[in-house]
C-alpha cells in the first residue's frame, strides 16, 4: 500500500512539478534569446549611426579655420569701425 501511495505521488505531483519548473526555465531562456536578438540589431544600428563621428576631426579643423577667419575679420572691423 505504501508503495502505491509513493508511486501515485511521484506520478501525479513530482512529475508535473518537474515539468512546470523546466518549462519555466526554457521559456525564460527563449525570452532572453529574443532580447539578445533585439540588442544585436540595436547595437548594429548604433554602430552605423556613429559612422559620422569620424568627420568630427574635419569639423574641428574647419571650426579652427573659421575662428581664425573670424579673428582676422574682427581685426579689420576693429580698424575700420569707430569705438563706442
Amino acid at each position, binding site marked *: 500500500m505504501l508503495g502505491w501511495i509513493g508511486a501515485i505521488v511521484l506520478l501525479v505531483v513530482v512529475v508535473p512539478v518537474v515539468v512546470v519548473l523546466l518549462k519555466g526555465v526554457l521559456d525564460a531562456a527563449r525570452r532572453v534569446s529574443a532580447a539578445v536578438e533585439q540588442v544585436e540589431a540595436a547595437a548594429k544600428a*548604433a554602430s552605423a549611426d556613429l559612422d559620422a563621428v569620424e568627420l568630427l576631426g574635419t*569639423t*574641428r579643423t574647419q571650426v579652427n579655420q573659421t575662428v581664425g577667419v573670424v579673428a582676422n575679420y574682427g581685426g579689420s572691423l576693429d580698424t575700420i569701425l569707430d569705438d563706442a
Partner: protein
Amino acid sequence: MDAAAVVTVLAVVLIILALVVFLVGVILELRKITAGLDVVIGAVGEILRKTEPVNEVVHAINADLGAGTELLEGLLLKKAGPEDGPGLVESVFPGGGTAMLEREGRSGPVKNIDVVYTRGAVQLVRLGRESPLGAGGEAGPALRDAEYSSTAARSLYSNPTGPEAGARSRPGSPTIGSGAPAVFGSVTGGADEPPTGPTVDLDAGDAADATVDQPPAAKPGAKDEVETKDIGLGSRPGDEQAAE
C-alpha cells in the same frame, strides 16, 4: 515485480525524459544567446572605438568656438559699448544678451535694440556704404554680385557726376607738351588771327595770377632748350621797357 514498483519506475522514467527534453531545449537557447552576445559585444566594441575621440574633439571644438565667441563679444563691447553690445546680441539671439551679461559678471535688463541699429547704420554710411538696413526685405536678388561686384556696387551707389554703367570710369589723361593735339592758347589760324586764350583784367586781380612762366635762361652749353609757346595774354604798357 510489484505493480507499484512498475508505476514508480514509470514515473521516474517520465521525470528523466522531461529533464532531458527541457534541458536540451535550454542548452540550445543558451547557445543561441551566446552567439547573439558575441555579435552584440562586437558591435559594442565598434561603438567604443568610434566614440573614443569624441570627448577630445568636442572639447577642442568648444574651446575654439569659445575663443571665437569671446573675440566677437569683446569686439562688440568695444565698438557698440557695454549697453548696446548685449542688446544687439539679444536682438539676434533671444536670451543671448542676458547670457552675455552674465559672462561679463553683470546683471540687469538688456537694452532693447529696435529693428535698425542706428549707430551701426551711421557707421556704414560713414564708410561710404549707403546702408540698406531696414530699407526692404531680405527677399530678392543679392545686393552684391560676386563676379561683377564693381558693376553691382555702381548700381547701388549713385554718383550723378560719375560715368554711366559700362563707360570708362575716368577720362583718359590729357596729352601734354608739344605733341598735344590741342594746346591751350595756341594760334589755330593764320598769322593775322589773334591768339586764343583768356583775357585777364590785370587791374582787378592780383597781377601774379596772370604771370606767365618764362622760359629759363639758356645756360651756356646747354644741350636742350625748352620749347615754349606764347599763350597770348598780350602785353601791357611798359613790358617792353622792362624787358630791355
